[in-house]
């Protein structure tokens, strides 16, 4: 059990959302709706695991991933990072997040810092590395994701693909125990997803522990050891890619796979 990197135990998270304006106008009021995004989900991730979560949009995958990094605080259940329980009151979440890399769907680079500045910041301020050391490691991370040509550019001056690779560099630079990636390619133009996928493939080869929310099926088939079908706040089915690409057990997964594969081949 020593190689357990992260674990979620019966994690539950609900939030209130206002019904979309159009619908609200037609009934004359703005009722609030409780959305149960994560309903008692449990998941274990061991060192070197590459797991991929997929499922319909709005099913709560991203919320679950944010809960894992304690960016959203779960209502119930526990999150463990190694032996440490993060959901216990008084847990040092900042220290924990320093050991968890997170890559956002909409990238969220710090707009006032260059690529180098974005990667360096946590090394200097969180790991407290001396200046040269931080710079060396930041440059190494940027080299690894192959964006050395824009180290001195600001986010606004980069393409989406470059920006997202800088986002990945920011996550890996401090050698986290695990990297959580929330649909890292879905906000990018189709022709730019390739470069980000290549970067992720490289990370997979090096044995990086990763939990990825993604719909990139060819990529999933190639690198994921386990795929997790997530729908309506629950893990519906898990298994190796071969299972999902051939014959998933549940009807819902079957339907979803057919839809998504048709879409991919059409493109």
């Amino acid at each position, binding site marked *: 059990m020593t190689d357990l990197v992260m674990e979620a135990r019966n994690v539950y998270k609900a939030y209130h959302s206002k019904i979309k304006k159009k619908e609200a106008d037609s009934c004359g009021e703005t009722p609030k709706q409780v959305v149960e995004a994560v309903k008692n989900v449990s998941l274990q991730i061991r060192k070197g695991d590459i797991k991929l979560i997929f499922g319909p949009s709005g099913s709560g995958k991203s919320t679950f991933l944010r809960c894992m*990094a304690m*960016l959203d605080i779960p209502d119930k259940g526990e999150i463990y990072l190694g032996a440490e329980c993060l959901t216990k009151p008084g847990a040092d979440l*900042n*220290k*924990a*997040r*320093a*050991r*968890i890399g*997170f890559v*956002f769907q*909409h990238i*969220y*680079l*710090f*707009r*006032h810092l260059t690529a180098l500045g974005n990667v360096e*910041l*946590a090394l200097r*301020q*969180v790991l407290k590395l001396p200046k040269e050391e931080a710079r060396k490691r930041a440059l190494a991370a940027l080299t690894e994701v192959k964006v050395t040509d824009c180290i001195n550019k*600001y*986010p*606004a*001056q980069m393409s989406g693909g470059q920006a997202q690779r800088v986002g990945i560099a*920011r*996550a890996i630079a*401090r050698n986290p125990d695990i990297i959580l990636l929330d649909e890292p390619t879905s906000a990018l133009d189709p022709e730019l997803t390739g470069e980000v996928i290549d970067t992720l493939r490289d990370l997979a080869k090096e044995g990086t522990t990763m939990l990825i929310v993604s719909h990139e099926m060819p990529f999933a088939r190639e690198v994921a050891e386990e795929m997790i079908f997530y729908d309506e706040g629950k893990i519906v089915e898990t298994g190796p890619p071969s299972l999902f690409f051939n014959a998933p057990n549940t009807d819902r997964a079957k339907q979803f796979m057919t839809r998504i594969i048709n879409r991919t081949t059409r493109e």
Partner: protein
Amino acid sequence: MDVWQQLTFLLGGVPLTLSISVLSFLIGIAIGLPLAFVRAYEKEVAFLVSAYEKVFRGVPEIVLMLLFYFGLGPIFPFPFSNAFFVAAFVLGLRSGANQSQIYRGAIRGVGDEQMIAGVSIGLSKWRAIWHIMVPQVFNYSTAGLGSEYALLIKDSAYVYVIGLAELMTKAIQLKSIPPGDFVTPFVLSAVLYIALTFPIAFSLDRWGNKRKKKIGL
């Protein structure tokens, strides 16, 4: 007195005008910045900040100066019997209320996702604010800060009521020198004020726009 003598006399008031406005602007930053973040991120005490803003945006600066200088000065000679202190204090607190609103708009403009990204790399809330939000908030609010500084230069004219000899007071003194020139002192002082406010607001605005474009805000 000819025009040049009058101008020289008025220019003698400019250092005081500038030092009051600079000092109160700095006090305004020191108050406004923390208040804005408290109001944005500490919902339980946000009402205190809003009350502070209401008071200092709802009572005339002149009345506050009269209150602190003539009202509290005799009771607490230190520090309220010092007119310069009262001037910077009142305008600084007022500017803090204004700047708090300016920064709050900027915090909204910079966006929550920047905060989330900051926390995701392991920074604590207040360190994320310091390293991620504050620099961007300043870039975002240059135009507002430019006009706030111009406002402070103009409002420093109010210190006439507590007898500090800055530009406005000097103009009134000039008017009172027999035989009494009612034209030149006020025209000149208006021109001087415009000369003081124009370049600052203008250049801050331009610098801010350039900078904003660069970082894509």
